[in-house]
């Protein structure tokens, strides 16, 4: 077996404490890379368990307007995958919090799959979420990620069949990302029993933790999701708050999300 990754260690620790993971998403380089470094530490201070760091891409087809605009701002600042890796490397002098990159596949492909895995793990990246990479594509790349203990977190959706659930369960390491809606990031979540049913279906297939994301905005929604999943991912509304609110307001919002997730009763 491989050494336990920071992500798996974090989930093991939380599960022992019967607590749920809070996984905020921010776009690297929005508003700039120095601010992103500060924000990661702020999120950790305010209770985040794992950080999901977006890599800007010119054509983010799984993202809604909020994250599209954030990517455009970051690209306009000249942010690249290489610079995001350097950012993580710098952060590793200050924090041990698990960091997952959310990147589209082309920047990784252009970087060179093998080179990327080597550099990312050296810089202290713990895992990747690639919304346009399916678990049945790019076998060599995915296998190499496993070899170098870079967690590959695959997504499942309300449309996923049993076969797809099984495949994602086998190929995912760290955790499994359940997309709560058929849609794009930032859309409105509809809290219905089907989410719990699907999370249960995934759990019947796999021992791996299941985090739920897409469309979760309010502490009340986060609390609802925390009742049924092992982790709660909040993205667009945090990206929005970073741009629209003061730092104090942002901290208040993040703490409220943490509080809601940490105090959610099970089931």
């Amino acid at each position, binding site marked *: 077996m491989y050494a336990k990754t920071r992500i798996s260690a974090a989930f093991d620790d939380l599960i022992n404490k019967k607590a749920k993971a809070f996984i905020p998403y921010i776009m690297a380089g929005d508003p700039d890379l120095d601010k992103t470094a500060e924000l990661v530490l702020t999120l950790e201070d305010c209770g985040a368990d794992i950080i999901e760091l977006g890599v800007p*891409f*010119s*054509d*983010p*087809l*799984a993202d*809604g*307007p909020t994250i*599209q605009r954030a990517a455009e701002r970051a*690209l306009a600042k000249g942010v*690249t*995958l*290489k610079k995001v890796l350097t950012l993580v490397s710098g952060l590793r002098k200050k924090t041990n919090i698990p960091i997952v990159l959310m990147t589209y*596949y*082309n*920047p*990784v*492909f*252009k*970087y060179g799959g093998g080179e990327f895995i080597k550099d990312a793990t050296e810089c202290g990246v713990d895992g990747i979420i690639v*919304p*346009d*990479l*399916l678990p049945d*594509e790019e076998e060599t790349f995915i296998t190499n990620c496993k070899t170098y203990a870079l967690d590959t977190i*695959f*997504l*499942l*959706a*309300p*449309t*996923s*069949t049993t076969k*797809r659930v099984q495949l*994602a369960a086998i190929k995912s390491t760290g955790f499994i990302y359940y*997309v709560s*809606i*058929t*849609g*794009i990031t930032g*859309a409105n979540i509809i809290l219905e029993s089907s989410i719990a049913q699907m999370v249960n279906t995934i759990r019947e297939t796999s021992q791996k933790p299941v985090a739920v994301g897409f469309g979760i905005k309010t502490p009340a929604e986060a609390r609802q999701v925390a009742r049924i999943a092992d982790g709660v991912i909040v993205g667009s509304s945090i990206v929005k708050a970073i741009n629209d609110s003061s730092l104090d307001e942002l901290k208040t919002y993040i703490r409220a999300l943490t509080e809601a997730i940490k105090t959610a009763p099970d089931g």
Partner: protein
Amino acid sequence: MKEGYFGVYGGRFVPETLVPALDELDEAYKTYFKDKAFLDELDILRKYYIGRPTPLYYAKRFSESLGGAKVYLKREDIAHTGAHKINNAVGQALLAKAMGKKRLIAETGAGQHGVATATAAALLGLECDVYMGTLDMKRQSLNVFRMKLLGARVVAVDTGAQILKDAINEALRDWTTNVKTTHYVLGTAFGPHPYPSLVRELQSVIGIEAKAQILDMEGRLPNYLIACVGGGSNAIGLFHPFLDDLDSRVNMIGVEAGGLGIEPERHAARFAGGSIGVFQGCKSYLLQDEDGNVLNTHSVSAGLDYSSVGPEHSYLHDIGKVSYTYVTDDEALRAFDELALKEGIIPALESAHAVAHAIKLAPTLASTQLIVVNLSGRGDKDVQHVANIKGVHF
């Protein structure tokens, strides 16, 4: 070769949400293209609605003016709605209906695929939303109105460069959201599997007809096939039936948009200025920067103004079965004029790229050589644009 791949190109690079819909489409494609009732219905629509077979026309005055090979034109411009796009749109709409989908969505650049999809939706009684970049909507306002006349809703896309690639992103986002009720009519032989194969299948009617027609008229196969390549559906439709080994004597040339010249963001010649990348559902040649962000493109022709190219073309390029070249905006505009003057045929600016290459090639060949140019669309939609370029404003 892995299913859905052409060599190392193709595949499926899309959100997980879409996988069941792609599987369903693949299944329907495999089932219905063996189903006699479905194929009969498609044949009837091709014959009586689209107007197939389209003629293969010997362009005598045009050929003589060039002083070399005989140039034949495959007249897709005569097809209903004025371009080859209708072959694909009607076929996919029929498939969507067979799958029980109530709504079609499509992306469009120049508006031809949007018009074709809106037409097919009206024909079959389906709802239709067409995504179009706001810049393209301004350039092609006539086609926007045509789509509305046909009952489609045109959705303005104001993200990115507000052109075709942005419209595709938005169509994919819509499909991801409404996948249960909606079929995405992708307009070219591109995107995630099975689209490159499905669209090729529907467009191969061009090459099948052209082959039979040239054998009938000349008693032999042509020496050259020439087609413009944006996404590449008209080209793959013409080339594919000639690709088997017995036809290896047929030289095939794909013509990309050279725009203002081969410098970043001034052209759309993926084979001249691109490298392998993953974009909008598949792996293929792509115009991108060193960090893997997709570059903007330029062409006088909106239909060729795209950053990537159908994955089968990338494969045919690498194995040397098809050669790819480009012509500039100016060369295409001269060809546009030339065909109008010599034959009374105004080509689409896309097709004018293929004509422009024939103008270069034909004089270098003996008069016994035969060239077939795919005249993929007619130029009515471009008349106003060309007038503006010539300084004429209405």
